[in-house]
């Protein structure tokens, strides 16, 4: 397990050094500084030297390092480091050198609480904030023994993520479906890879201990019982299930994989694909999912790039919006790579503005508002300086970023969100959909 947690700034100064085991010696900090921070050759987040393994994550301008001596679960180590970053953000707004220096006492206190003998304990920010506080995070709870015992009950209980005494005058729940659509298109225009990484973020302002049920237009769910029957007698009843699948195919989505917040009862999802949970208070990520079938690509891009001799490159990039004309995308940014030896560029666009950014070797074409079904074109020309050392241009892919409201690339819809609470109050629910570009790359 973890022998120690170290935090460094970019210069390699040790900001935090917390050893959890006697085998984490102070000079390990020097070793990490020499071997990783001041060594530009390092290409792996994991470095094993002798019997010591350093696993590090870089966040903002600091290195977070976990030292392990034994055969620790590497995935757990990194998840923990990321959780530490998340906790830092939740406590200080952001976790950078400044925040670490200003809050080092609190960070020691947190580390002491979330790791015991190197084993991670409860790392839920909402629970921790009840008894580890700063000026920024004031706990309403006094330091009295009775309160403390209640806190500790909760921190170790089966629903460690929720206080029991939450009250709201107006019970509301907001559901945001956010999809990152990834595309990799070859130079010939074939789609090499298209998939959607979605997340469903919920903001729950609900009183008491509500039990929620959440329904999507998940194909497997619509075929009730199909997945469970499959599980019990594998191979059997295939004919039946395929006919059901085709019937339900209209308007449903196949989710390749789902991951849930720890509040979701995984056993129930596994058995009958029902998402049921007691939500934490406030904002949390309810689930993540992945879809690879029938991905609707919101934008089609046709780049034509011609290298004319060694001194000029001509671009003609056409982009077409592939969604309903009632919708519009915002902040559409197209980055068009130019050769490293570009001297100057000229651009003409039918919409938006294009600008050459020499430090990025990109022509950046921005369209603030892109309504559905419209098509825009950019024509550009890059003049190159001659170089003594001619090397072929590697043509990095053209990339896109955008955000598009009320559209899901996977076609996912929220069918219902039911809230059951013993007080039987009525609650208001809101759903919002958004599609963003994940890694939307087009080769040319």
């Amino acid at each position, binding site marked *: 397990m973890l022998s120690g947690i170290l935090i460094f700034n970019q210069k390699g100064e040790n900001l935090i050094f917390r050893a959890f085991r006697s085998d984490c010696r102070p000079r390990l900090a020097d070793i990490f500084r020499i071997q990783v921070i001041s060594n530009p050759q390092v290409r792996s987040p994991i470095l094993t030297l002798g019997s010591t393994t350093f696993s590090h994550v870089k966040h903002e301008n600091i290195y977070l390092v976990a030292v392990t001596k034994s055969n620790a679960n590497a995935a757990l180590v990194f998840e923990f480091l990321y959780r530490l970053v998340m906790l830092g953000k939740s406590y200080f707004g952001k976790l950078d050198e400044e925040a670490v220096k200003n809050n080092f006492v609190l960070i020691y206190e947190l580390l002491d609480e979330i790791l015991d003998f190197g084993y991670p304990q409860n790392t839920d920010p909402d629970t921790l904030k009840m008894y580890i506080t700063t000026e920024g995070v004031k706990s309403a709870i006094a330091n009295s023994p009775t309160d403390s015992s209640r806190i500790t009950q909760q921190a*170790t209980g089966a629903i460690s993520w929720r206080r029991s005494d939450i009250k709201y005058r107006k019970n509301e729940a907001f559901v945001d479906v956010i999809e990152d659509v990834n595309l990799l298109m070859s130079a010939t225009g074939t789609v090499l890879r298209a998939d959607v990484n979605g997340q469903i973020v919920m903001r729950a302002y609900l009183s008491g201990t509500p039990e929620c049920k959440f329904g999507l237009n998940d194909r497997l769910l619509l075929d009730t019982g199909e997945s469970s029957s499959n599980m019990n007698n594998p191979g059997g009843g295939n004919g039946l299930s395929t006919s059901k699948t085709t019937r339900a195919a209209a308007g449903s989505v196949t989710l390749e994989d789902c991951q849930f917040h720890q509040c979701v009862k995984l056993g129930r999802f596994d058995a009958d694909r029902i998402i049921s949970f007691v939500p934490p208070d406030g904002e949390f990520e309810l689930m993540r999912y992945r879809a690879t079938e029938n991905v609707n690509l919101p934008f089609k891009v046709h780049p034509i790039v011609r290298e004319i001799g060694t001194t000029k490159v001509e671009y003609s990039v056409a982009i077409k919006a592939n969604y309903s004309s009632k919708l519009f995308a915002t902040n559409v940014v197209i980055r068009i790579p130019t050769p490293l030896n570009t001297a100057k560029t000229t651009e003409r666009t039918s919409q938006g503005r294009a600008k050459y950014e020499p430090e990025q070797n990109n022509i950046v074409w921005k369209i603030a508002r892109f309504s559905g079904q419209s098509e825009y074109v950019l024509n550009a020309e890059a003049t190159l300086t001659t170089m003594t050392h001619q090397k072929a241009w590697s043509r990095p892919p053209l990339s896109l970023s955008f955000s598009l409201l009320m559209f899901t690339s996977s076609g996912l819809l929220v069918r219902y969100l039911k809230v059951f609470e013993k007080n039987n109050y009525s609650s208001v629910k809101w759903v919002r959909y958004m599609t963003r570009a994940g890694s939307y790359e087009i080769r040319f």
Partner: protein
Amino acid sequence: MAMNKIRGAFTVPRKGETFELRAGLVSQYAYERKESIQKTIMAMTLGKDVSALFPDVLKNIATGDLEQKKLVYLYLMNYAKSHPDLCILAVNTFVQDSEDPNPLIRALAIRTMGCIRVDKMVDYMEEPLRKTLRDESPYVRKTAAICVAKLFDLNPAMALENGFLEMLQEMIGDPNPMVVANSVTALQEIHHTAPETQALQITSNTLRKMLMALNECTEWGRVTILTTLAEYKTSDVKESEHICERVAPQFQHVNSGVVLAAVKAVFLHMKNVNSDLSKNYLKKMAPPLVTLVSSAPEVQYVALRNIDLLLQKEPDILNKELRVFFCKYNDPPYVKFQKLEIMVRIANDRNVDQLLAELKEYALEVDMDFVRRAVRAIGQVAIKIESASERCVNTLLDLINTKVNYVVQEAIVVIKDIFRKYPGYEGIIPTLCQCIDELDEPNARAALIWIVGEYAEKISNAGDILGGFVDGFNEEFSSTQLQILTAVVKLFLKRPEKAQGLVQRVLQAATSENDNPDVRDRAYIYWRLLSNTSDSNATKNIVLSDKPPHRHHHPLTATVAPRPTPFRTFVGHGRFGADAVMRAAIEYVFNLLRPSSTLLTNLQEQLQNARENPLAAAAAAAAGGTTAPAQAQNNVENLLDIDFDGGAPASAQTEPSSGMSGLEGLAGTPVRVASPAAGTTTGQASNNLDDLLGVFGDSGAAQPSSSGANSGDLMNGFSGLALSGNAGPSQNNQTKKSNDDILSLF
């Protein structure tokens, strides 16, 4: 502001800082004392020695301020070692705190006591620990559970005597899931450090308890329980089925640590359940694994390493998911490299076109290292999938036509390997020969020369080409020199009329003007072989013998789990393969010439072949029906040693096998022997150690004379591993440990 003062501590230390801090620590104002404690902690973090303040800090321990208490405790943990006597002063406070009405303070006291690693403190721990283990608050109980592990680490005897282990075992039945998880954690830790305690015995009852807690405890607790389940060995089919059924839902957890631990547990228990069911589980684990590939890069890396291992055991689980592993332009290099390996692993004749197009794309990128690996991957695909070899060769030709220097060089090396397996592509040789002037790396030059030598009868100007190399013989690297030597001899044997002069020149250059013993030795053996007139075919039989095809993947065929378990079978093959070829070769030489040990070392090339493909070599040798006398066998063993120790130049030539950066060549077979076992560290330290010992016990017995050198090689092998880490990344630790043990053995 106070904040600014704290930040001030990061600046240059002022004179008399300790003095100032001390004054603050004994100040009459509480806030000044607290501030000084904070500054002291800050100085401690910066690596300054503030242990002199120990008594003054200690004075502040009795306080109602929880934050201040924590700071003092933190200081105590750090410096207790340097002031063991003074620690006693704190004992009273600890004992008192462990009975405080506030559970947070009780837990804090017991947690800190366990971290103060001073013998005297241990004596006072017994009572508080016993009480807190039975505390009414689950928060205190779960903290106390871990504290038992801390105590065991400090003083095992005391932990055993006081029955703390039994108490922990009972606590697996605790109603609170976190207490269960921490008890299991503590027992697991104790079990690993001292297996003889049998601390963690899983019965059907504890199994049931753990499975219940699994769905309720924190994500970290789940990892512990899942790990324990994975290590639990059962032959009971029902039990395995039950474990799989309860663990499989955890694939959907958001924490990748939980997902991988769950995959591991199911994977290991799956082999007990019936095949339909286990197929179903394989199908179920594929999507979550793919999902991990879109997480943060570091997590991705860990996931990819694990996927790589899983694929070795179950090559088909992801064969439809090739596209997922396509490299993104912005992926960090370590992720890209790993993805390349996985893509080669899941390549099959259906997705190969797509893969080749993608690899070709990568070969045109800018990162030189990545480009080389991409080119090498094309070669691996060709060797893996015979039906695709032509397309691979065409792709490589396209790349050669780009004229990008390093791409061309790598492509030639790869083509040499393809030639070795599929001899039918002579048509492209002229294209290759056109690049001859651009090659400046010894590997690429050696590869091209090998091709020329191998196809000397079909290349009309082979003599001219080789002549050019012979002229500059002394300027070449020794690996290239060796290839020139062999190629010229091959040419001579195939077309004596053309190369008579050439072969004399090269032998002259290699024997009289060269300092490298390997080159000279090889030249001498050729010289003698060529001057042997009794059997004119003997030389041909040796020099032009069929080359066993390459093997591009480690022949890891035994069980592989997310962290694999040892494979002994393969070890045997490796030695056998090398032996067999050696034996066959030695018979030749023995029969033809006077036995001489210098001659024997020159059979490195064959040996190397044997190393590259032990199985095929063994089969070939077996087909020949040779049986070596016991005497020869012994010689063989010695020879093997010599080769391992000194064969670097010859075997350093291209060996594009996946994974291990050229170090393979350096350490020879031992690396291969070590690699599977070394990748194994999965919580089976002892097991692993046994296996390693077993492996080297064998070879050690056979080659007592060279065991010292051999272990040196072993070290090489291991350090190679540490660099290219074969298994789950942070596992090398354990390997190192066993390594040390092996060393002490010798």
